[in-house]
């Protein structure tokens, strides 16, 4: 099967192509140098051609997301998706059903989406849902930051054993990266408590958040994983938390090697607050951005807030309880034995609300103040800041100071004073948008065949009905939003899967997972030790734990070479 995408303005930052008119050739799902004359032709003249979107942090699947769906029938009623001869029915808005999730990503030109938090004990559930998310490629990040075995090994200084355990866990859960959420704080939440300092000791475990982050950062390097530790630090959503965020980034500064990132701080908008309470909250995006600008070992993603109704959900149980206390909305808590927790609270971000307006500003400030777009990625921490379907809106905000300032005029005066957004006039280019939404995210995830259109890459391509020569994104932000909302074409593995924002084909995407290669005797020791104490940790048997590869329809393991 061959495809020729002709005459589009191509934005392929990884290959340093910046809006040149080029043809892209596809054969058998991959980008190739040339195709035969019988190739199907897509005339992309007057349109933008980019690699398919790659989202590295979006809560789309798993037990927590599903309880979010269960919690919010009122969120589904007004956004319904009927069945068609091709597509399944479903519901949308802030926590869409699985089929709808896949379609809506594809309709926006996204082809790869990673679920960033799964409790290993329930990761089979996550994969079952990922299996039901059509079109896109996907993966999930198991949670390690409050795992009992991890904390014990790090306390005892047994780094290699910890690494072997993490390797085993990634293998059995079919996970992709090490996710850390509120390290140690969720274990403390097992007793209704939380940790607020990097050097607080986790009750009963004798380790600190700092030691957990550093330890897992080292484990990550030892295992040679493709993505650095993916960290949601302590004190999220708390005024004054920019200090712990900086401390979190600093705490692994010395571990960086070869100038490569060794930590990803996620949804950093929720982590850049100054002030001492909600009345004095202010933006410290500038401090965070300055640190990121001056260091090569850290990357971040935005976690942009969208005004409107959405559902917050994180593994951070104590944070979600605090959010309940603030909002008095309905609250879900879901602790997971020996591993982690989760919480869910619906929220409505209101433009006229001073705190929400500051949050809105911070997300944009971070994206715009971090000079190198390869270090800051487009996310809303779906659905925490807002649903992923609002990405086009965020793109329009990043590309147009005009629309930003229009909104700035409508937010409370105090929010204007306590943020920097009014003074930032940077407007991102199409190339920069391509970086933050596909090229850099694919690179950060270590997906070598994604995020670019060079020969050999997966033929995941999105084409948008925008002529960069004639449009002025600064004033025509509505057109930008519209065009990114409905891709003219979304091509997945060389096949057109969506046309003009409508799904036309529903292939099954890959499930990526990392298969760390560690010495067999080390793995055998880990397994035997775990088997011996498994009953002490869990209420399920060792044999019934984990995810069998045969249950993943397009299992795509990525070997990682460890130095164990």
């Amino acid at each position: 099967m061959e495809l020729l995408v002709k005459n589009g303005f191509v934005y392929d930052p990884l290959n340093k192509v910046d809006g040149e008119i080029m043809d892209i050739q596809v054969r058998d799902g991959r980008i190739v140098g040339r195709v035969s004359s019988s190739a199907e032709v897509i005339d992309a003249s007057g349109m933008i051609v980019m690699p398919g979107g790659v989202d590295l942090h979006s809560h789309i699947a798993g037990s927590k997301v599903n309880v979010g769906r269960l919690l919010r029938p009122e969120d589904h009623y007004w956004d319904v998706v009927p069945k068609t001869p091709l597509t399944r029915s479903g519901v949308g808005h802030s926590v869409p059903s699985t089929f709808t999730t896949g379609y809506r990503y594809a309709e926006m030109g996204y082809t790869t989406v990673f679920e960033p938090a799964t409790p290993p004990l329930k990761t089979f559930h996550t994969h079952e849902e990922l299996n039901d998310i059509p079109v896109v490629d996907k993966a999930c990040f198991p949670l390690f930051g409050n795992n009992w075995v991890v904390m014990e090994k790090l306390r005892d200084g047994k780094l290699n054993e910890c690494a072997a355990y993490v390797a085993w866990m990634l293998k059995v859960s079919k996970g992709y990266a090490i996710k850390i959420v509120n390290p140690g704080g969720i274990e403390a939440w097992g007793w209704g408590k939380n940790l607020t300092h990097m050097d607080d000791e986790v009750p009963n475990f004798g380790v600190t958040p700092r030691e957990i982050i550093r330890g897992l950062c080292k484990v990550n390097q030892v295992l040679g994983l493709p993505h650095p530790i993916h960290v949601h630090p302590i004190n999220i959503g708390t005024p004054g938390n920019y200090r712990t965020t900086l401390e979190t980034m600093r705490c692994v500064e010395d571990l960086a090697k070869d100038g490569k990132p060794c930590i990803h701080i996620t949804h950093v908008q929720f982590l850049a607050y100054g002030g001492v309470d909600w009345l004095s909250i202010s933006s410290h995006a500038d401090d965070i951005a300055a640190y990121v600008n001056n260091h090569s070992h850290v990357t971040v993603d935005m976690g942009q807030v969208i005004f409107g109704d959405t559902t917050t959900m994180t593994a951070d149980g104590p944070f979600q309880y605090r959010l309940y206390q603030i909002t008095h909305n309905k609250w879900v808590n879901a602790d997971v034995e020996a591993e982690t927790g989760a919480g869910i609270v619906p929220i409505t971000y209101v433009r006229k609300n001073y705190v929400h307006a500051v949050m809105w500003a911070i997300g944009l400030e971070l994206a715009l103040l971090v000079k190198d777009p390869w270090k800051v990625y487009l996310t809303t921490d779906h659905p925490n800041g807002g649903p992923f379907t609002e990405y086009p809106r965020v793109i329009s905000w990043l590309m147009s100071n005009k629309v930003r300032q229009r909104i700035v005029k409508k937010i409370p005066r105090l929010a204007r004073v306590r943020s920097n957004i009014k003074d930032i006039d940077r407007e991102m280019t199409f190339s920069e948008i391509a970086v933050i939404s596909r090229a850099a995210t694919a690179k950060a995830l270590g997906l070598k065949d994604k995020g670019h259109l060079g020969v050999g890459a997966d033929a995941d391509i999105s084409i948008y009905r925008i002529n960069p020569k004639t449009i002025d994104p600064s004033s025509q932000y509505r057109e930008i939003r519209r065009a990114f909302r409905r891709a003219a074409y979304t091509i997945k593995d060389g096949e057109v899967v969506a046309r003009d924002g409508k799904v036309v084909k529903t292939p099954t995407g890959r499930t990526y997972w990392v298969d760390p290669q560690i010495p067999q005797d080390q793995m055998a020791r880990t397994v035997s030790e775990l088997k011996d104490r498994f009953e002490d940790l869990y209420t399920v048997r060792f044999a019934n734990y984990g995810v069998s590869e045969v249950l993943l329809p397009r299992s795509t393991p990525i070997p990682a070479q460890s130095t164990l």
Partner: protein
Amino acid sequence: MAELKLSLRRSLRVPIQAEVINPTILAGKNLSEVCKVQVWEGNALTTLEDLFKIDGELAKDPKEQAVIVEGDLSKARRIGARMSAGKIVVLGSAGLLLGEEMTGGSIVVEGAAGSWVGAKLKGGSIEVKGDAGDFVGAPARGSTKGMEAGEVIIHGNAGAQLGCFMLNGLIRVKGKVGAFAGVHMQGGEIVIEGDSAGRLGAQMVGGRIVLLGRTPSVLPSFVIQEVRPSTRVGKDKLEGPFYYLEGDVAEDSWKGRLFISAAKNPHLKFLEEHV
């Protein structure tokens, strides 16, 4: 007012989705257009003409449009849903979700109505001459935004959880009500002329409930304030004496108010000791 008459041609085997029986949708059309308006009958689309004999007049403006419906419509869900103006008269019984999310105009049902009468009501008035089912004026599942405005009058009895999560407006029941009238109520008024099955105002944080009949008991989480000789609902003065209680104390920032007829509830006399 222009009167359009819809007479049911055949008895309904499966439910129909009758939100098109609605002046807001029908006004401005001509008769042949009305005939072709689509209606879900179970899982299949049919036309109004297939279900009803249609005649009468059509107005340009929904305000000037009355729709008279004849037949047993107890399987017709959502009659008058989202209507904004005009009038609907149902000469038989109506099904579930009568006047759901209605914003204006009026609906009169000569017979009984199913559950969720006036769900999410935002304005207008609904009058049911017979009995009504459960969840009068309630919100969608999971939502805390119940009836926001408007008026519902039930001449017969009403079921459980009447006025659930009610925000504002008035519900008046001439007959009996099921348990949990005014549950999670946040504002507005409920007047019950008959008896209550109990648990009045459970978890309410605002609004007023007046009970002229009997209730088996009051919840322990309501606190007696005083005995009042009378109370007012709109322009009407209702003669008591009433036990006046506030609650639900088990909730945050409660200020719900209950007025319970003292004469009809001698078994609650013990409350007077706590005044």
